[in-house]
């Protein structure tokens, strides 16, 4: 298996770094899937993750000036690696004003993803920093658990309000209850509710707009004011919101009543899908 890629454009580098930071906030350990056209950061819905899953996808040609990979085999031309997200984001953080960034798969004393940063310096001599990030190669037989999650037909699909606002609301709510209800309808209304013995707090967001639903029939049967709701763990929602440092280009949320909430974001050209299951 081989992998070798290079970024020379400053904007691409910064964007890649931001994505890596976001992943680090969303998942402590994640899987990096390398394929000829794409890079994916994957978190699968194991119990250890609390049932949360994540699928982040980017087109490699939007970032890398050079990209070569050789997967497991000709038929399975992919590489699946497990790494600690923070290691990657920290290494990339040092590449803020770099001239070039190279990433490659190496095997020094153990398999590593070597990130090599070429920096500008005051004088002519360029400064080079390398980071060997230890990784685990995921065997072929486990790949089936790491495929793109199927998005079930949502009951309601709605555009999200400004994420920073949502985050500050949820942060305050976290102090009162660990259990939150998200509900939305096809009239552009979204509510965040918490309920305890002593107090109920609801925050209403209006005029959010709804994207066109895939299947016409469900939208016609449904009363637009009817709320679809799901009960989730507030900390998981907060972790998701905290990971969004920059306001996304597009953000929408799909609710499957009492099953799960699915967040679908687009950060410029990188798509992020995040699934939070309902509390049983």
């Amino acid at each position, binding site marked *: 298996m081989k992998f070798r890629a290079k970024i020379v454009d400053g904007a691409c580098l910064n964007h890649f770094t931001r994505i890596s930071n976001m992943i680090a906030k969303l998942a402590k350990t994640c899987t990096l899937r390398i394929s000829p056209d794409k890079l994916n950061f994957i978190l699968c819905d194991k119990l250890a993750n609390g049932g949360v899953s994540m699928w982040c996808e980017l087109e490699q040609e939007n970032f890398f000036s050079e990209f070569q990979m050789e997967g497991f085999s000709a038929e399975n031309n992919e590489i699946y690696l497990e790494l*600690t997200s923070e*290691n990657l984001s*920290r*290494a990339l953080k*040092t590449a803020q004003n770099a001239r070039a960034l190279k990433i490659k798969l190496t095997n*020094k*004393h*153990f398999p*590593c993803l070597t990130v090599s940063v070429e920096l500008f*310096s*005051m*004088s*002519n*001599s*360029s*400064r*080079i*920093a*390398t*980071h*060997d*990030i*230890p990784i685990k190669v995921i065997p072929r037989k486990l790949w089936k658990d790491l495929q793109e999650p199927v998005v079930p037909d949502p009951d309601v699909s709605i555009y999200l309000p400004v994420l920073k606002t949502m985050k500050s609301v949820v942060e305050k709510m976290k102090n009162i209850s660990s259990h939150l209800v998200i509900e939305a309808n096809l009239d552009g209304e979204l509510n965040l509710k918490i309920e305890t013995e002593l107090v109920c707090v609801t925050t209403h967001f209006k005029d959010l707009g709804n994207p066109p639903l895939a299947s016409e029939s469900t939208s016609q049967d449904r009363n637009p004011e009817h709320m679809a709701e799901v009960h989730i763990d507030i900390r998981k929602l907060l972790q998701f919101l905290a990971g969004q440092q920059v306001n996304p280009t597009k953000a929408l949320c799909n609710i499957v009543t009492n099953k799960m909430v699915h967040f679908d974001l687009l950060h410029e050209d990188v798509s992020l899908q995040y699934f939070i299951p309902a509390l049983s």
Partner: protein
Amino acid sequence: MNENEHDTTLNLKCKLGMKSILPIFRCLNSLERNIEKCKIFTRSDKCKVVIQFFYRHGIKRTHNICFQESQPLQVIFDKNVCTNTLMIQPRLLADAIVFFTSSQEEVTLAVTPLNFCLKSSNEESMDLSNAVYSEMFVGSDDFDFFQIGMDTEITFCFKELKGILTFSEATHAPISIYFDFPGKPLALSIDDMLVEANFILATLADEPSRASSPQSLCLSQKQKRSDLIKKKAGKNATGQTLECISRKAAPRRIYPKETLTNISALENCGHPGMKRANGDISEVSESSVSNTEEVPGSLCLRKFSCMFFGAVSSDQQEHFNHPFDSLARASDSEEDMNNGSFSLS
């Protein structure tokens, strides 16, 4: 105000808690804007250092801090005879430091006549399978002065380096680094108009034989040192860094000759992670305390560092007449800086 009528100049060596001093000088902006004068003096009768701020409109704020007498350790270390000397702006080095994950205890510096490389210490990254191994090359052009006598790789405490760089960024002078082979101390030196600071760090010895070279003389100073050693001997040897901060010694003319010979030097140390002979620490140190002889490097199992700090002031005359008045304004370092070494013999 302590009025000292004696003509003999006296010098006070004492310790003050950092926790007491920091809050007093915390808000730099408000200090600069509102304070007209600051007076620092001692009241030897009450063992207190008094810091007074004189504000506008006759407002005066007084802080009384208790001090403790102390006999600081001295280090014999001549930076001029070091094989390798570098000088660089602290900012550039601090930028390099950013590359290392903060959990690391040690960092290795590898130099050749052409380049300079900071890298994660091998000892550590081998143990932790999750640790990122980093290397940072800095071209020799970035240095104000770059003289390497021989290819060297030395390992020392990372936390100390970070602290020293943070401190040195406050001054605008370049930082000089003097070092030799592994095991021999490394000195970091800053020379500004107002401040000269020298930091001596212990480095990891490669093999036991190295550390027992003639340079690793270890003379001990009686009580304080043995107290210090006894106190720390019980500690778990893994990853514990022994810290020892000392003040610069007073100039010759003030101290009687006898005390000058009782100066202790920095011990070269072995790896803090070495667990063997943990129990031997107290034994060895006691023997080193009683005889002023070389301590075999293989039995040195702790790490500690010393910091010397001498304040330079223009008010030389005033100091001679009222030695007890001002602690911080004192300048006792002029003569000793001339030959660039710290030894007082």
